[in-house]
């Protein structure tokens, strides 16, 4: 089955390949796999905590051309979006944009799963950060 021009374009010139430090509190990391084809996708977002805006996104993937193209497109779409807007990115939009055939739909699902996982990871980090901060505030309060 031939790949669409858009898939080939992303495959030959993938955008935003790379990674951020996973220990950065403003970074959310999503690592997901598609066992039926042995694909792995790691997608990371860098969020500005005061605006909730995704300032940058990066990915690394081990998979077929459609998996690479889906991840590349997802990182492009993520940049400049708020967390809430990013939650609304649907795999069907990726399928449409890249003209993925039915057998490759799971690649777009993988990208959507990775976005959700990255956002969840970022949010979990923020919760534990504020928990630590209030803990510290209590300690300070108790000491004074």
């Amino acid at each position, binding site marked *: 089955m031939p790949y669409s021009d858009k898939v080939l374009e992303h495959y030959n010139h993938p955008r935003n390949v790379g990674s951020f430090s996973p220990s950065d509190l403003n970074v959310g990391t999503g*690592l*997901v*796999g*598609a*066992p*039926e*084809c*042995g694909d*792995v996708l*790691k997608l990371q977002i860098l969020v500005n905590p005061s605006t909730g805006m995704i300032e940058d996104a990066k990915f*690394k993937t*081990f998979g077929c051309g459609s998996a690479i193209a889906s991840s590349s497109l997802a990182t492009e779409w993520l940049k400049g979006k708020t967390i809430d807007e990013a939650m609304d990115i649907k795999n069907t939009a990726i399928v449409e944009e890249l003209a993925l055939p039915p057998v490759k739909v*799971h690649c777009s699902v993988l990208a959507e799963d990775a976005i959700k996982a990255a956002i969840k990871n970022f949010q979990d980090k923020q919760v534990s950060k504020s928990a630590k901060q209030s803990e510290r505030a209590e300690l300070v309060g108790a000491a004074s």
Partner: protein
Amino acid sequence: MDEDTRVDMFERLGLPRRFSVDLEVLEREYLARSRSLHPDFHQLGAASEQAASLELSAALNEAYSTLKNPFRRAEYLLQVEGGPVASAVKNIPVEFLEEMLELRMEIAELERDSPEAAEMEKKMQVRCKALLEQVGQQFGLTDATRLLAIRKLLNATKYVENLLHDLRAL
């Protein structure tokens, strides 16, 4: 005829339905059966007989190539025993995915036919073999969780198989 195309692959080759297969016996059974089914032997027969032998021959070849490869054999046996499909077990351990991604990056840096590539290929083959040995052990058990355990092992094997595939495509 319809009945015949639904025979399971082990039966088609006269083998017991189990994971462990003697490859010599498989080879022998395949050759004997493919000779008697070969379309050339049926050229003078009726058109329906020719079509039937062609169909049986294709099914035999499919059974042979599936059972010869331990990974594909295990996938087939799991399916016949009603085990879960690959996509049904999504929660792959994160450490494993991380490791697969790292190995993939390492492999991408290797040079074709280099000693490092050969060493990596050997390591991955050993790993694949070890996973399939565990699959074999699980197939020998009778407890209810074995099918899920086999599915997890086969999903992991698929990742390692893909790494091997990448190594060969360097």
